[in-house]
């Protein structure tokens, strides 16, 4: 685990991970309007229970207040944002420019993503960019940081000091290459990984075993992604309608087996049990809790998951 243990940025998230603590991140989606109070309020609900807060970038291709501006709001509140950036909407000029913009506010974490196809959002007739892919964006961030150079080769004055992350979906098809794909992301420069929501714990553990077999858990910090179900309906929807999601039948049954007014509680229980089980998995370095429009429950999940209080990065 040593190569990871030295920090390369001033990211609080990196510091906590490097100190060997289980990290906790969560995410907030920006509003569909220009009222920054909404994102600040969401952040306020969770700020004492997480180490860093991801801000989604026009998730599901629905136009929203931009991720970078939202991250700046968080930064100005003294919080630690993770800038999510998709390659769907920006070419390499805009991506590099936004990375510098983020760095100018000392935003220190970034998650490099492809982004959902625009077909799912409010502008299905729009153009998409995909000038780079998510792995090439990782390479770009790392080149800008480590070599202090733009993609074009010119020198960057005050290079961005950004802790570079990527997503991984242990469940998507084809399953055979899921670990190879992670290896590729690590080779491209990923330093931390936030996984897709995990409901099939057996399959996740099998993936983690393959990850360990290749020694990848020593090269990248893996944060296990979790999303609590609010209802049995949501569990069914995630199972049937969301591409790349693996929700086992027993989980759906468990949710449907309790009365409607108790389902939210059951969803939280499943989430907390998952944390307790996954904590024991070698190579899991933390949790990424995506409580979609349910941020107020994050503190409870973190506390009952035994992840509270959070370490003080200044003391590390």
């Amino acid at each position: 685990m040593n190569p990871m243990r030295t920090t390369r940025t001033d990211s609080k998230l990196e510091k906590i991970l490097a100190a060997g603590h289980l990290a906790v991140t969560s995410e907030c989606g920006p509003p569909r309007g220009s009222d920054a109070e909404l994102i600040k309020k969401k952040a306020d609900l969770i700020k004492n229970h997480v180490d860093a807060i991801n801000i989604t970038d026009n998730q599901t291709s629905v136009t929203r207040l931009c991720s970078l501006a939202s991250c700046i709001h968080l930064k100005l509140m003294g919080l630690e944002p993770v800038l999510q950036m998709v390659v769907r909407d920006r070419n390499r000029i805009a991506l590099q420019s936004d990375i510098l913009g983020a760095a100018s506010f000392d935003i220190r974490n970034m998650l490099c993503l492809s982004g959902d196809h625009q077909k799912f959002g409010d502008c299905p007739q729009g153009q998409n960019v995909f000038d780079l892919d998510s792995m090439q964006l990782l390479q770009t961030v790392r080149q800008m940081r480590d070599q202090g150079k733009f993609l074009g080769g010119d020198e960057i004055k005050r290079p961005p000091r950004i802790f570079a992350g990527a997503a991984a979906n242990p469940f998507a098809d084809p399953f055979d290459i899921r670990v190879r794909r992670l290896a590729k992301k690590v080779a491209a420069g990923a330093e931390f990984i936030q996984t897709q929501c995990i409901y099939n714990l057996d399959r996740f553990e099998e993936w983690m075993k393959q990850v360990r077999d290749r020694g990848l858990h020593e090269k990248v910090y893996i944060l296990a992604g979790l999303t609590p179900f609010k209802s049995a309906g949501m569990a069914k929807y995630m199972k049937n309608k969301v591409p790349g999601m693996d929700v086992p039948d027993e989980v759906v049954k468990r949710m449907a087996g309790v009365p409607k007014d108790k389902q939210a509680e059951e969803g939280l229980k499943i989430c907390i049990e998952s944390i307790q089980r996954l904590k024991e998995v070698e190579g899991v370095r933390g949790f990424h809790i995506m409580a979609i429009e349910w941020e107020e429950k994050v503190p409870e999940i973190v506390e009952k998951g035994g992840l509270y209080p959070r370490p003080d990065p200044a003391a590390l």
Partner: protein
Amino acid sequence: MIVADRKPIEEIIEYIKDANKVLIVGCNECVTVCEAGGKKEVGVLASALRMYFMNQGKDIKIDEVTLERQCDHEYLEEIRNIIDQYQAVVSLACGVGVQFMSEKYFQTPVFPGVNTCFMGVTEERGVWSERCQGCGQCILATTGGICPVSRCAKRLFNGPCGGSSKGMCEIGGEVPCAWQIIIDRLTALGRLDDYEKLAPIKDWSKERAGGPRKVVREDVRQ
């Protein structure tokens, strides 16, 4: 081949309704194969238009001709002697043919009769699908002969994305995931280790992004 699809007849009527004499020009190449703009489709469109204008009590003369190709001077020259009689030409060639005709017969309005869609194959009669976007720097050698530029909805060079599900692309509509096919091919070729090589950042200047392209071959130029 270049695959095109027929335009709605209402759109074509709108283009030509003020003309007295109209020439419909088919093309014997790709659009014949994809049954959008060959001799047969010229005949069908001409009859439909004649019928429509007759019902409207409009006297519009509609002639038909189908050229070997509309993307070569040689064949387009074949209509030089007759083209001046027409107030409008509807070309059922791909957008290339429509333009080449417009450039050559600068005084004659030439309208597109098809929607030009993509470069693709005939999967079976009546089903055509995309295979290439002419990106100017073919990378099929590294992707098991399957093109992620034209066949991955996000043109990922290091796919698949997280949305690939049971061999299908996240956009739905029965579109196969290009990266599933690439991986299946690499597996079949015993080259799955190649999958782990990071694909370099693409030089899009050879593609549309670089502006209109041209190939000049001095060795064959006359």
